[in-house]
């Protein structure tokens, strides 16, 4: 589903991704772990097309579609979802307005009919319930005044509503207490653990992987994948640290 081949990228003239290759098949969940500054967040931004993250070589395709040739909003319509480490606050724009605009923009780009206000609210209510996020939160401006945990749960509500084919979740577990971690983990499984979907989980810690069991774990260091293993690799890293492998 996602194929990254020999990807190099720089930020502000500094090379961050240095020949990264990775292949994720439909139905799989992959975790990427790595020390600070390894390029984990850069990878998610490069896949999402954030301005300032310049691809200098290699390729990245989603179901054969050249992601790097698309604008960020087109990548979303092609089925890519980016879960942000630091979700952005947008004063004056309600979640409901924002998400309905987002969903209908994507549907339009795919040649699908827009959802009516009623249909959308039903869907939003359903997904908010899944993440145990009060529906009133969705009527408030995007992420404004949300706690760290609420922002991450809201991210997962976005994912549930937009129903992507592939999700890159950048440190979705950071800032979550144990209960919220369980809820978010269950949300990821419910929304994305399907034969026709796949996930790339970027994380520092093993603990999220207790709730979302990865099929593969990769270690990212120095801008490339330096080791790949099964779920047990994450436990080994937790015990021995990155220095043992990187």
């Amino acid at each position, binding site marked *: 589903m996602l194929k990254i081949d020999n990807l190099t990228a720089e930020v502000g003239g500094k090379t961050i991704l240095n020949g990264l290759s990775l292949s994720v098949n439909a139905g799989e969940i992959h975790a990427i772990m790595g020390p600070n500054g390894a390029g984990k967040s850069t990878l998610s931004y490069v896949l999402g097309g954030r301005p300032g993250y310049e691809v200098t070589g290699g390729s990245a395709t989603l179901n054969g579609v050249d992601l790097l040739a698309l*604008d960020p*909003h087109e990548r979303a319509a092609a089925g890519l979802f*980016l879960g942000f480490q630091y979700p952005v606050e*947008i004063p*004056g*724009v309600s979640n409901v*307005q*924002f*998400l309905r*605009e987002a969903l209908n923009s994507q549907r339009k780009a795919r040649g699908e009919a827009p959802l009516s206000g009623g249909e959308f609210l039903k869907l939003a209510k359903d997904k908010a319930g899944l993440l145990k996020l009060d529906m009133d939160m969705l009527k408030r401006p995007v992420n404004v005044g949300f706690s760290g945990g609420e922002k991450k749960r809201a991210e997962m509500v976005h994912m549930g509503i937009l129903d992507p084919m592939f999700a890159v979740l950048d440190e979705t577990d950071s800032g979550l207490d144990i209960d919220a971690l369980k809820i978010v983990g269950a949300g990821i499984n419910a929304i994305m653990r399907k034969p026709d979907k796949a996930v790339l989980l970027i994380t520092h810690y093993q603990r999220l992987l207790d709730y979302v069991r990865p099929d593969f774990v990769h270690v990212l260091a120095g801008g490339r994948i330096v080791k790949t293993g099964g779920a047990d690799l994450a436990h080994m890293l937790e015990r021995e640290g990155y220095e043992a492998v990187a």
Partner: protein
Amino acid sequence: MAQNLPTTRDEEWRYADIPALERLAPDLAQWTVVDVAAGETHSQCMIAGGNAPELHRIRITVGEGGRAELFAVIAGDDYTRVEVEVRLAQGAHFEFGGVTIGGGDATREFVTRLDHAEPDATSHQVVRAVHWDQSTGNFLGRIHVARDAQKTDAAQDFKALLLEKGATANARPELEIFADDVKCAHGAAIGQMDEAARFYMASRGIAPDVAKQLLIRAFIGDAFTALADGAEQERLQNAALESLEARA
């Protein structure tokens, strides 16, 4: 008439487009006078600006415990100046929401002069400016608090969003406070589109032009939050956003 026109050496006209004013040749003595009786409420919405220079001068006096509200959009293609003088009696309130928006090379400006003449009066002013091309948006806001006007509570907030290099915004808050037990708050910020918000919206599938519109709608919306009449709010919002759509 022209010889009586102000120049940019006059503080109140410092950022004005004097040549445009000369074309207009206004009678500067001409004021629209509004008298709000004690305990009464006056509410007014205006959409100003067009293909020729405009000058609107409004003088409002608000009696004891009264309330005056003015919400205005300046969205024309030529120089437009809306000038408001307000005198507040005891316990009176003045609410002002203003938006200047547009491109070209026009100057659009609000000038307010508030006289908190008696105790316990309150005022709240929110001005938003959105400009592109070589255009300019100004807000000159003076608040005068008289010696006996204790417990005055006056707030003034200006934010400008410059969409392109070349656009300008000028803010000049001016507080003259002669009482000692008062609250006067003022803030001014001039910035550009929030890139993080734009990328966040794009990552959810919202196209750049739609994202920009949503962000600008939210930005100018601050100026109309105190306007209770939803239909009027919508009318002002749309008048402001029309000029944005006409951009392109």
